[in-house]
């Protein structure tokens, strides 16, 4: 796990957090445009964006911890593909959770345990597949590097959002 991999891992974490945030912000923008000036729209969008950056940092902490506790054999070239696969998989599960909260509240213990089991099983399967398959891990690494370019753009937007917040508050 070197500095470059850590940076790439951070950008991978940043990606799903921002895609989710930006999609939901865009749902609100038409309503905001009606009732606000463009400067206020930019300000209002800046807060959830800034929070998405903070959220990325917070989610990145367990990723670093995972990096610290993984066996040495998985900390090298395997670190980035493993983190990428797990972060994206967890994000998909959490996204599904957002869409099915209503149904979930009606679930009993058995259904909940089955759901949790499916979640954990998918993590284990992906972990094992990536850990064992060189081909898969190099494909995911290449994917992560492409993803990082887009995430860097999100990071730029975040910085712009932070500047907007600072200007509006001081």
């Amino acid at each position, binding site marked *: *796990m*070197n*500095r470059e991999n*850590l940076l790439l891992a951070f950008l991978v974490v940043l990606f*799903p*957090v921002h895609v*989710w*945030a930006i999609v*939901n*912000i865009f*749902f*609100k923008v038409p309503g*905001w445009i*009606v*009732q*606000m*000036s463009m400067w*206020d729209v930019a*300000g*209002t*969008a*800046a*807060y*959830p964006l800034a*929070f*998405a950056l903070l*959220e990325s940092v*917070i*989610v990145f902490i367990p990723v*670093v911890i995972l*990096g*610290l506790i993984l066996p040495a054999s998985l900390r090298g070239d395997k670190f980035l593909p493993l983190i990428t696969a797990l972060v994206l998989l967890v*994000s998909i599960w*959490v*996204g599904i*959770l*957002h*869409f099915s909260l209503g149904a979930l509240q009606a679930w009993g213990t058995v259904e909940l345990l089955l759901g949790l089991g499916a979640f954990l099983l998918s993590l284990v399967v992906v972990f094992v597949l990536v850990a064992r398959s060189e081909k898969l891990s190099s494909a995911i690494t290449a994917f992560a590097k492409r993803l990082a370019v887009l995430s860097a753009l999100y990071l730029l937007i975040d910085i712009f959002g932070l500047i907007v*917040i600072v200007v*509006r*508050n*001081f």
Partner: protein
Amino acid sequence: MSDLTGTGITRRDVLKLLSVLPLLTVDLPTLQAGRLPAAQDENLPNFLILVFDALSAFHLPFYGYARQTAPNLTRFAEKATVFHQHHAGGNFTTPGTSSLLTGALPWSTRAFHLQGTVIEPYVKRNIFSELGKKGYYRTAYSHNNLVTSLFFQFHQDIDEFIPTRELCLLDDEFADQLFPNDYTPAFLGEWLTFRGGETRPSSLFLSFVHRLYRSLHKRMKTRDYRDQFPRGIPELHNLSFVLEDATDWIINQVQKMPRPFLAYYHLLPPHEPYLTRKDFVDIFHDGWKPVEKPEHPFTEGHTNQFLLRNRREYDEYIAYADAEFGRLYDALEKNGSLENTYLIVTSDHGEMFERGVRGHVTPVLYEPVIRVPLLIKKPGQQAREDVHIPTSCVDVLPTLLHLAGLEIPDWAEGQVLPTFGAGEPDSERSIFALEAKKNQKHAPLTKRTVMMVKDRYKIMHFTGYEKYNDVFEMYDLQDDPEELNNIFNSHPALASEMKSEMFERLVQADNNFLGA
């Protein structure tokens, strides 16, 4: 010490970093509005304004309601001036409250959106800024976040601005603490991040953590009150409260405030959800039914049975608010706080349970949703006065300024209320209310409902709605107070006259935003 990551970070570095985590528990400073010079002329009258959110005049016994929802307000009315045809500026909090505070209608202030704010000129055109000219000590509190957005706009002219959470059991909002200089965008951003509303929260992971925290926090903070409130602890969105806390605080606050003062307190009950106290649960299980009304094209599809149940729960919630008002009024009378004080009781908008509509988030402007109580007790007043001519919430500002010996500014759209001014009241004047949530703030209104009341007649115009476009409704409020018989077509001359006047005022208002 081993290098953990290959980046030069050691285990000791991590431990050092962990040691600063407790700093996260340190409270951030709460908003402190700029303090103005202390009040000067103690002979000037004080003004205490109590706003009960969503209190419809149609549900109060002293306006003719069948249920005894408000024995204490009725008792208060016996020693106050009671306005029988008082109208809000709109059908929800933002237009209703902004009109009350600025003395200007929503088509001028442009505060007609949810979490809306007034346009720039009105930031310095309001009841707080005007009474400040006479050295009034001005204080404001609201349970309702929509009002808080307005307070943040006016805060330079409020000497003591009490954050909502001060009188709540819990309020998990943080935008006001972190970003007081940019409250409304920060509040909306926070809301989207953790709650979403009609969209999903924009926080993918932490919104679940926040949700769990909110749930546990609420359970912990409201534990001691569950027996008292079997239907649930009074709440709205992110806050839970009991009105008793606000009552106690107001009694104490009014007593110690510098004189003269303007105190504006905006309390949530009986705003939905209707969660009354134990002593009022089921007190109106009386089988009484209001006049049945046909479904409106803007029906929300509620059955009569549903509406009757909600009406009963609303009435029972009013009884709770009334009981607390009674306690407040008695305490203020007893401790002498009402000497030289005008006590004003009103609401920002009403509530309706008819035509398939429940509540107030609706394009319609029928009387139950816009006719609100207005009771003003003058210092020392012992006899009831009744005013039957139509009045508007925009009249409150000019009335208070008149009583404080201030000139009424030309931007104020109301007039001094009858019995409070020197001249004869104008019974022919027109009263307006507006619903325009879907319009651009700085452009002419294209999708809106506007209503005008003049003398005994009322006209409503709906435009821009897909299934109810360019439709007029007109009622004779004297002969048909339930607004059942649309006389727009049967009284063409009167309809034309009222329509012209209403449109003339609309065009005047829209002209300011042409080409914006």
